[in-house]
């Protein structure tokens, strides 16, 4: 682990047990996240893409210890956060924050903006009284909201404004690392662009690191330094942004990139559209999890699980077909 590595995730695994019947018999497991490892450097943005249900949000929640992992370890600034006692974790929480997907569900409808943005300040005893209020106003300005928002309630704001409030709340404790869990997927395109630009701007000013989760490849391209592609709980490809968009190696990554809407009719005709659904994560296919949908499938793909290996500098792929 290098000095500049802020977050270091190794073999992170999260299974949800499936319980049936009166006695809650354990009849299986949903393998939401399976053996995920990656490193996040300081000031860097790692994009995480994948279909709905591939375990992106679960991964985010496990990293923030909102869900207990089944296996694996997470080091934040060299500290294994999974072994921390709850009090120590509580103190550490101000350094890692999260922005949620749903700008409607992530703000308590019964609290004013002042109390929503000010709550982390009070919990971590960062400021109180006049100082607290000044701090809240400053945070709101930082995300482009007026001071008059203080006494208002979430329902009085638009989706984009609410997302700004969510960002202000996440910034309140001056974190180093923010997980952005699909922050723009419920916003329309122009608002989404504003929010992404805001996040980029804040990153420069406050030296933040992001784990940016999205299924919108264009948004990820815009903000990320490196991109990880997730399929069925596993990372299948991880590389620098320029490389992954120009020279995708994994068939799934290729399919995702080809699915980006385009106006060019020539490209449109060449396009390969991914068919079929994501397999049931409780019963993943043997071998490579992607083989039932892969157009480059070979016989051994159905039996042997491919492991993530480095095929060129900082480019990792989990596919038998890539040499």
């Amino acid at each position, binding site marked *: 682990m290098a000095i500049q590595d802020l977050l270091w995730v190794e073999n992170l695994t999260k299974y949800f047990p499936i319980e049936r019947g009166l006695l809650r018999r354990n009849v299986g497991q949903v393998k939401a996240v399976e053996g995920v490892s990656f490193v996040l450097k300081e000031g860097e943005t790692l994009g995480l893409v994948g279909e709905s249900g591939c375990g992106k949000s679960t991964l985010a929640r496990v990293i923030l210890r*909102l869900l207990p992992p089944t296996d694996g370890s997470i080091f934040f600034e060299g500290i294994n956060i999974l072994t921390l006692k709850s009090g120590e974790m509580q*103190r550490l929480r101000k350094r890692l*924050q*999260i922005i949620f997907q749903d700008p409607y569900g992530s*703000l308590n*409808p*019964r609290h004013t903006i002042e109390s929503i943005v000010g709550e982390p300040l009070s*919990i971590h005893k960062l400021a109180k009284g006049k100082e607290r209020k000044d701090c809240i106003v400053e945070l709101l300005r930082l995300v482009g909201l007026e001071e008059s928002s203080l006494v208002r309630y979430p329902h009085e704001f638009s989706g984009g404004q609410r997302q700004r409030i969510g960002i202000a709340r996440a910034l309140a404790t001056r974190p180093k690392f923010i997980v952005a869990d699909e922050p723009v997927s419920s916003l329309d395109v122009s608002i989404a662009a504003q929010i992404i630009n805001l996040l980029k701007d804040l990153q420069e000013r406050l030296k933040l690191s992001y784990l940016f989760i999205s299924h919108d490849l264009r948004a990820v391209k815009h903000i990320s330094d490196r991109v990880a592609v997730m399929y069925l709980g596993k990372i299948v490809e991880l590389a620098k942004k320029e490389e992954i968009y120009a020279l995708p190696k994994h068939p799934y990554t290729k399919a995702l990139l080809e699915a980006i809407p385009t106006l060019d009719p020539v490209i449109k005709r060449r396009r390969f559209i991914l068919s079929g659904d994501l397999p049931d994560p409780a019963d993943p296919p043997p071998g490579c999890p992607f083989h039932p949908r892969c157009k480059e499938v070979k016989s051994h793909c159905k039996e042997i699980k491919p492991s993530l290996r480095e095929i060129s500098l900082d480019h990792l792929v989990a596919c038998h077909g890539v040499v």
Partner: protein
Amino acid sequence: MTRSPTRIALERLRRHPLAILGGVILFLLYLSAIFADFIAPYHYDHESRMNSYNPPTRLHFFDEEGRFHLRPFIYPYSYEFDKFYQRVYKEDRTRPYPLKLLCKGDEYRLLGIFKTNYHLFGVDEGARFYLLGADSRGRDLFSRLLYGGRVSLSIGLVGCLITFILGMTIGGISGYLGGKVDNLIMRLCEMVMMIPGFYLMLALRAAFPPELSSVQVYLLIVVILSFIGWAGMARVVRGMVLSIRETEFVLAARAQGVKDLSIIFRHILPNLLSYVIVSLTLSIPGYILGESALSLLGLGIQDPHASWGNLLAEAMNIAQIKFHPWILTPGLFIFVTVMAFNFLGDGLRDAFDPKAIAGRVRF
């Protein structure tokens, strides 16, 4: 101009005429119960055997000579027996008794503090003013209704409050902790809910000695009704806590490091408030009816104390209803109260959340 969710709800409520009507009726009823001893012309146990089943007293504005009097007056009633030895009441027109505002009568303590004997209205000694007729022992039904309202109306509130404290606490714990505790509490709830409410009520009452003071009986009824009601409440609260626990604003609070207790009290329970207020309003009639049912069967409030249930007990005989139809008025009061609570509850439900379906506490 900023408006909190509660304020928006109250503004919406203002545009709901039936709910306003219900609210006004309830306000008047509760007011009359609080000031029962002032408004009632007689004490609830002030009897006059000579006036058994005296019909409602007629108010007169014109005297024998046909002269108009601004102040209404009444004549005392006397009776003869008909051939079935049934009393037939008739006005005795020899001396009129004018109706007086702030008339002196039975002594009482206003609001339990000031000793006084002034009543809102009444007539001088010598005649009895029966606004809604008299019962078998010649007690004024109107006065007894007001006193009875104290028991019947307050049992609804107190019973509900206890149920909600129990239901919120138990349901909240069950939903928040989850797992084995949740499973155990929910099975217990189902066991309580499985027994038909009315039988449980009778069985619980039967488990206590029949000779209890009226205060003890009152408390006993409250406890019995709450014991039956908490299970349904706890189940609904548990479900709502379960769903709110998973919302992103609770996750956000956890990500910020807010402590569990603070999450329950600052983030989860306030979001149940609208449901609680609506459900509270809609379930109060259940308590009023429960008390009435117990008292009607003679298991609740005992004579001479009045409650709407035991007043109605006199109307259990069809012959009584035929000859003295006014003894049914307690039923009318129960009906109006239940309706008013339902109107208000429906209005509150619409006001708080136009999409919500509020549950009721079952009996």
